[in-house]
């Protein structure tokens, strides 16, 4: 058997600095940068005169597209308008179906009873009784909390966007696997698209297309498409070569090979992609409320802005429940086994779920003519009539009680929370922020550049340099450093919280059974939700921003630590035990070092998520890149918005390449690649 010899990285040759130890190289760069900043102001702030007005160019370009550009004699504006109008049709149909009703033919929208029953029946079909109960409770929640219509408005975009994003993703994915050129163009684009925050899509789309549901739809489709494309690529590339060859030897044409062999064989990966599309769509629809999407997201944003936190919590819970239900349903569908004992069953037995739903649908349409509550959930649940009426449940009243409780809590808790907040702000946040703002850019570029070169060689170095200079020369240094500072502190906190939790979960099955589902759920929530407690507990400022980032971005730190420890080969641990290591020694000397590459990949994910959240926290108030992104939507300064979004993605890519290169190298050394 041939031993696979791993290519060993050759140290860069013929470079005089190589003779100096690593710390010396870093020290030299730092000293050089600081000295340079003392004699040349341009090293602290890129000279105004040298700034490339890229933001202005982009804004001007989009303005030109909107007003003057023509393609083959057709005004570009008319093309986008045409597309927009064409996309409006399916949205309208979905609206008629879910909440408007078909006025022309006198048919109402789907009665809520039918929709709820449909979801529960589908849940039972794909996932059994437990899933059906979860869905049933969610439906009841949406109805009793008076959120039905808004939920349907949100679902309107979801049901139109999901098939579009899925089809587009599969098509692009297939194309990428078939064409080298397409692969070269799209693979980096997917990387970039996934690292770019949700919000950054809204401004340019809103600029080119009509403001409103169509913009939300397009932005959502663009945002939700990459995971589908990635899963398609992954699925097609990981179909076992035997299966493909078996298809070829069976005499398949290329088309048959794709449609009859490759795609169906990767069903599970594709379904995973679909699950991602659904989740991303929901997350985006909620956020798209700042660009004209109606529904729960819009109501939640409004409640947050009005500080009606009780209502906001009710709406936030609704969004989260919908997210959980959609997640579980698509997952259950992906793992649903095909029943092979269909023969010998009657038509009714085979289609009992469908028939039941059709029955309820017809019955509820008829019943809706007589009972209003079948059509639309009642806003108050009242028992009895006349003077004997008792209000069983009133969501609005509950919300007001919650509001009051939160305010009372705030008054009491303020004396405890505020000193902590002040202390952290004065002693940690402000010094770190001031450090990053003081930092001369040559030091930043030099340190990251040296790291990139040592870890990943020339390609990574060149990429990182290009990305770093992109925000320096366009005059975004200060905003980018503010984002860097926020994200680094948030990521550090995530690691401090997440890694011990991950270790704890890895050591105790019982703890894992509690922590891991919580992690799943936290990641299912649209990121918007995390603003509620932050605003509730803290006032504006970076402290609140960081607090809002934490629950979302800690999850990967926990999960990767857990998985990293769980994946250590038992032999390695047994060897540690055999050598007489104590539990602590084993953890620090054996397990953590072996799991470290995995944990670092978790850190990588944490940073990506923290970056994504900075655009969301801009809704609370911040002065970093995220704020630029959000602001650009209303100022129509698309150039700044697009660039700021790109720079957030750039920070993510730099972190990804540095950590990724390190982890790959480390895994290679450990022989666990």
């Amino acid at each position, binding site marked *: 058997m041939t031993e696979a010899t791993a290519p060993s990285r050759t140290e860069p040759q013929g470079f005089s600095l190589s003779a100096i130890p690593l710390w010396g190289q870093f020290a030299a760069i730092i000293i050089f940068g600081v000295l340079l900043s003392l004699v040349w102001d341009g090293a602290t702030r890129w000279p105004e005169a040298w700034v490339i007005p890229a933001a202005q160019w982009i804004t001007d370009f989009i303005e030109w597209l909107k007003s003057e550009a023509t393609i083959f004699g057709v005004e570009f504006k008319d093309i986008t308008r045409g597309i927009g109008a064409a996309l409006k049709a399916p949205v309208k149909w979905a609206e008629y179906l879910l909440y408007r009703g078909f006025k022309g033919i006198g048919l109402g929208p789907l009665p809520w009873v039918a929709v709820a029953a449909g979801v529960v029946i589908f849940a039972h079909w794909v996932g059994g009784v437990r899933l059906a109960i979860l869905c049933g409770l969610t439906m009841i929640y949406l109805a009793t909390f008076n959120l039905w219509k808004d939920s349907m408005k949100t679902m309107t975009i979801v049901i139109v966007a999901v098939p579009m994003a899925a089809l587009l993703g599969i098509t692009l994915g297939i194309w990428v696997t078939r064409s080298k050129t397409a692969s070269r163009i799209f693979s980096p684009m997917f990387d970039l698209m996934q690292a770019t925050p949700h919000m950054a899509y809204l401004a340019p789309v809103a600029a080119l297309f009509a403001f409103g549901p169509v913009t939300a739809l397009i932005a959502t489709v663009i945002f939700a498409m990459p995971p589908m494309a990635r899963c398609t690529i992954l699925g097609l590339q990981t179909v*076992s070569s035997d299966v493909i060859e078996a298809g070829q030897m069976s*005499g398949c044409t290329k088309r048959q090979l794709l449609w009859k062999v490759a795609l169906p064989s990767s069903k599970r990966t594709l379904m995973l992609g679909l699950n991602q599309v659904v989740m991303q769509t929901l997350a985006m629809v909620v956020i798209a409320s700042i660009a004209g999407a109606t529904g729960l997201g819009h109501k939640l944003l409004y409640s947050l802005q009005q500080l009606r936190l009780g209502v906001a919590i009710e709406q936030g819970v609704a969004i989260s429940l919908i997210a959980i239900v959609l997640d579980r349903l698509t997952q259950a569908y992906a793992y649903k086994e095909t029943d092979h004992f269909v023969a010998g069953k009657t038509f009714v037995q085979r289609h009992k779920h469908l028939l039941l739903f059709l029955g309820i649908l017809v019955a509820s349409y008829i019943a809706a003519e007589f009972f209003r509550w079948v059509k639309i959930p009642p806003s108050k649940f009242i028992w009895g009539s006349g003077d004997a009426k008792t209000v069983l449940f009133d969501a609005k009243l509950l919300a007001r009680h919650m509001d009051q409780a939160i305010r009372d809590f705030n008054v009491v808790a303020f004396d405890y929370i505020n000193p902590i907040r002040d202390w952290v702000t004065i002693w940690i946040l402000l010094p770190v922020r001031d450090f990053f703002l003081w930092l001369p850019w040559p030091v930043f570029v030099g340190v990251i550049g040296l790291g990139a070169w040592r870890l990943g060689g020339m390609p990574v170095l060149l990429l990182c340099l290009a990305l770093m200079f992109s925000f320096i020369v366009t005059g975004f240094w200060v905003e980018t450093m503010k984002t860097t500072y926020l994200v680094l502190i948030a990521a550090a906190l995530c690691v401090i919280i997440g890694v011990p939790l991950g270790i704890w979960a890895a050591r105790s099955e019982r703890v894992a059974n509690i922590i891991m589902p919580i992690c799943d759920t936290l990641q299912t929530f649209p990121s918007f939700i995390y603003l509620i407690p932050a605003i509730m507990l803290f006032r504006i400022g970076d402290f609140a921003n960081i607090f809002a980032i934490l629950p979302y971005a800690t999850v990967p730190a926990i999960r990767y630590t857990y998985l990293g420890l769980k994946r250590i080969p038992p032999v390695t641990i047994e060897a540690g035990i055999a050598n007489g290591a104590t539990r602590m020694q084993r953890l620090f000397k054996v397990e953590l070092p072996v799991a470290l590459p995995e944990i670092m990949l978790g850190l990588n994910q944490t940073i990506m998520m923290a970056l994504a959240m900075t655009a969301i926290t801009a809704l609370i108030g911040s002065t970093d890149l995220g704020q630029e992104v959000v602001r650009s939507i209303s100022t129509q300064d698309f150039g700044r918005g697009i660039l700021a979004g790109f720079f957030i993605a750039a920070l993510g890519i730099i972190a990804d390449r540095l950590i990724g290169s390190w982890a790959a190298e480390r895994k290679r050394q450990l022989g666990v690649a």
Partner: protein
Amino acid sequence: MPTDAQIKCRNLWKVFGDDPQGFLRRHKGNPSPEALKEEGYIGAVQDVSFDVNQGEILIIMGLSGSGKSTLIRCITRLNDPTIGEMEYEGRDLLKLSERELIDLRRHKFGMVFQNFGLLPHRDVLENVAFPLEVQGISKADRVTRAKAMIDLVGLGGRESYFPRELSGGQQQRVGIARSLAVEPDIWFLDEPFSALDPLIRAEMQDEFIRLQSMLHKTIVFITHDFEEATKLADRIGIMKDGRMVQLATPEELVLNPADDYVAEFAKNAPRERIVSVGAIMQPVTDAASGTVPMSAKIGAVAEQVLTSENPVAVVDESSGTIVGSIDRQTVATSIFGTRSSEGTRAA
């Protein structure tokens, strides 16, 4: 017997690297191993020529990385050879259009894969019917045909099972049924039993022998298991580092290995089942008592010879004449002797 050759391969090369065509052209179609190494090319198949004869079982054997899988993929055009000539029944395989190639695969070729290559989303019946389906054969016809194939491999009653619900051996039976569904002229088997447990493997080998005794296909069979090769083969081609070092009957391989590499394989071979009496007989002697047929394997006559005081006469069955003799000593040495001499050499 050149007329019997169903497939002819001449000077096949499959080279992996940046520009394999140019590389082979530079070296006039015959680069040295040093040149390959120096320029960073990998010669998966190097200058291989052989024929596959009508109705024979040709086994191609070698360790992993020896190029045997690449070779079979060249013949089936799953991978195109870099240079070389290949003919199937007189037609140039390399000049086939896409359409002709698909036609050939639909009607003439059948292939079985190491990891079965079953379509996970189709049940047994649909898997077996798949090659018929892509040809556009009507549903009723293909179901009938597929059911017959499923019965043939002994999986009747499991038509609606999915691959994941079957054991490895059962899955490979489905693979076999599928490859036979189109009634191919040539049957390619790429390490069909390597992924199976030893017991199941032996069972499947017997099954294979049973099928072949009914079907009489021309077969190209890949394995890394010399014992399997000797059990099933008419002829064995041994590959090493992309070259075919010897192509011969199992008996010739054992008796006259072309080099140390082949000898190394042959050393553990069950000689008693491979070597025939005719190959080791001595001249005719008068002292002989009793007769054995010349083509019999030693194992089959060992008991008779070893229990006989005198040498035993060897008879050519076709003419009925006595052509030589065989005694205890010869039988003993041919079964055990070489091994002991190997042992001393090693020491």
